[in-house]
């Protein structure tokens, strides 16, 4: 026993409760250690006091009385809490609980912050590897490939939202017609539209010049589930990843419908996610290739109630209401529209003569309304879209140049909008981004 341990026996010496072994140890040590001897000698006063039977009885009575008061007074746990060890334990327990709570919160925050970056990685990977080429016949397609793509795309979606499918996914588009220049075997509307849509989903690549979402107001995505081909459609190439952001918006709306407690953290994620997508899209877009030049046109008639409605060409030609041709470009480019009636020479319909220009620049996402007269019988329009201003050409030259380029991909879309309106539009995309050759679109009228 060390000297420090021997000191612990002093209490037993005064009360005379040491065992023979303890006494032997203590006294032997005391004979060798002056300090211990002095301590024992000092304890002798207390020992004598405790040895007095009267004092002994008084002390015991006092202690018994105190114990009785304690047992009827404050509860045992309170007494335990008053002890230093109890206080220390309670304090450390409280600190541990606080640490766990803070740890959980920090972990949740880190998860929230990590989610957009994970999504960005998963989104940008396919966008880098996917070539926007329209080769529908090259992919007779085993069923596994689209499934893999679906899985790849669905990963972040599953993370972001719980199981209920969006209205976008549930909605079935009515008709989808694809007109590839090289000819595409006739397929069902679903078969044609969905690969384009899948490409839409995968195309998060957007060049740095891509306009903001509020500038472009494309129709609802007309998403159609299930597909068998992997060729991107003209519509998908036109938007070049824009539908991702639309999907994010629709997801955000869905989340807003959920209970507040459930949607709050997820909404936060959704707010961050498009930002991440946009960043990755910009990065990937600038790193891969420029966006393909595309044009979207449709016929719009004005209803009696003043609302405008997109219709197909046949309906437009038969309409009694005023008809307009709407043209929208997916990037800033120059537009000119020629009109050819029967076999006469083409006339420049737009820009108007008063402008003194043969072509005018149209901003990205800006819809140009060109009023049409349907009274002239058989006619056709020629829309020319070019990245560079068109040189002044004669009407004869216009006839010569009135031939579509073979690398143009054209797709006619008829789809229900989520607002209830329908989209009747044609998308034409020039697949070769390297040339400055214009997009030429022939639009028959009165047929």
């Amino acid at each position, binding site marked *: 026993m060390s000297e420090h*341990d021997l*000191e*612990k*026996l*002093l*209490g*037993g*010496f*005064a*009360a*005379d*409760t*040491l*065992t*023979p072994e*303890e*006494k*032997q140890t203590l*006294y*032997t040590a*005391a*004979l*060798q250690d*002056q300090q211990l*001897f*002095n301590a*024992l*000698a*000092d*304890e*002798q*006063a*207390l*020992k*004598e*006091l*405790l040895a*007095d039977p009267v*004092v*002994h009885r*008084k*002390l*015991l009575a*006092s*202690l*018994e009385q*105190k*114990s009785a008061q*304690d047992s009827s007074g404050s509860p045992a746990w309170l*007494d335990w809490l*008053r*002890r230093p060890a109890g206080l220390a334990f309670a304090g450390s327990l409280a600190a541990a609980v606080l640490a766990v709570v803070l740890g959980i919160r920090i972990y949740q925050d880190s998860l929230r912050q990590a989610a957009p970056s994970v999504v960005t990685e998963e989104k940008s990977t396919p966008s880098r590897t996917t070539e926007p080429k329209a080769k529908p016949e090259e992919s007779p397609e085993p069923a596994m490939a689209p499934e893999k793509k679906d899985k790849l795309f669905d990963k972040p979606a599953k993370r972001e939202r719980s199981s209920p499918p969006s209205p976008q996914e549930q909605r079935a588009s009515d008709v989808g017609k694809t007109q590839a220049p090289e000819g595409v075997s006739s397929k069902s509307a679903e078969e044609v539209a969905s690969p384009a849509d899948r490409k839409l989903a995968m195309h998060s690549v957007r060049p740095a010049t891509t306009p903001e979402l509020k500038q472009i107001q494309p129709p609802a995505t007309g998403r159609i589930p299930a597909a068998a081909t992997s060729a991107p459609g003209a519509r998908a190439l036109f938007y070049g990843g824009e539908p991702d952001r639309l999907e994010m918006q629709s997801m955000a709306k869905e989340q807003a419908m959920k209970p507040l407690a459930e949607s709050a953290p997820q909404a936060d994620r959704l707010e961050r996610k498009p930002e991440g997508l946009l960043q990755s899209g910009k990065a990937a877009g600038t790193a891969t290739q420029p966006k393909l030049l595309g044009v979207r046109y449709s016929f719009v008639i004005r209803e009696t109630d003043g609302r405008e409605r997109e219709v197909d060409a046949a309906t437009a030609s038969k309409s009694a209401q005023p008809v307009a041709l709407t043209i929208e470009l997916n990037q800033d480019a120059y537009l000119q529209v020629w009109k050819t009636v029967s076999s006469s020479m083409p006339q420049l319909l737009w820009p108007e003569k008063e402008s003194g220009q043969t072509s005018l620049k149209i901003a990205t996402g800006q819809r140009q309304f060109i009023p049409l007269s349907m009274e002239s019988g058989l006619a056709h329009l020629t829309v020319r879209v070019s990245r560079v201003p068109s040189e002044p050409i004669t009407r004869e030259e216009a006839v010569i140049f009135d031939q579509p380029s073979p690398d143009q991909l054209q797709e006619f879309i008829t789809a229900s909008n989520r607002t209830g309106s329908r989209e009747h539009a044609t998308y034409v995309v020039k697949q070769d981004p390297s040339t400055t050759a214009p997009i030429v679109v022939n639009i028959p009228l009165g047929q």
Partner: protein
Amino acid sequence: MDREQILANLRERILGFATLRVSRAQAEDLAQEVLVVLHEKYPRVTELTELVPLAFQVLRFKMLDAHRKSLRRGEYNQESLEDLPLADPDDDPAAQLDQKQRVGRLLAAIAQLGGRCRDLFKWKLEGKSFPEIQKIMGQNSINTIYTWDLRCRKQLLSMMGGSWE
């Protein structure tokens, strides 16, 4: 360790202890007187566990006696012999008062102790040894009891003003 060796060690320790409180000459006398008592009155006490506490007891008596003698001799404050009271075979009132006050202080100090310390003190007054207290308190190690008792004793001593006197 035989009796002679124990007594030799005791003398050395008693001298060291007394030197801290009285002069060296008085300490020598004290140690000598204690050993005389042990030698003459308790020649049959040979066990260490009996002889050492006995020496502490004798030493305390001798120190108190020396203190009283000094008082009588007027070493602390000179007073005439006529003014001193007659001797009483019982404890003198001063000693009684002193003990009464000590008991009062001890009771007050004990009342301020925590529950465990009071329990420990009570069990010790009841004559329970540390191993028995260990069982009562359900502790696995007796060192825990030793440690608790040491802390309680120091706490009590502190509340008593640093001395049992």
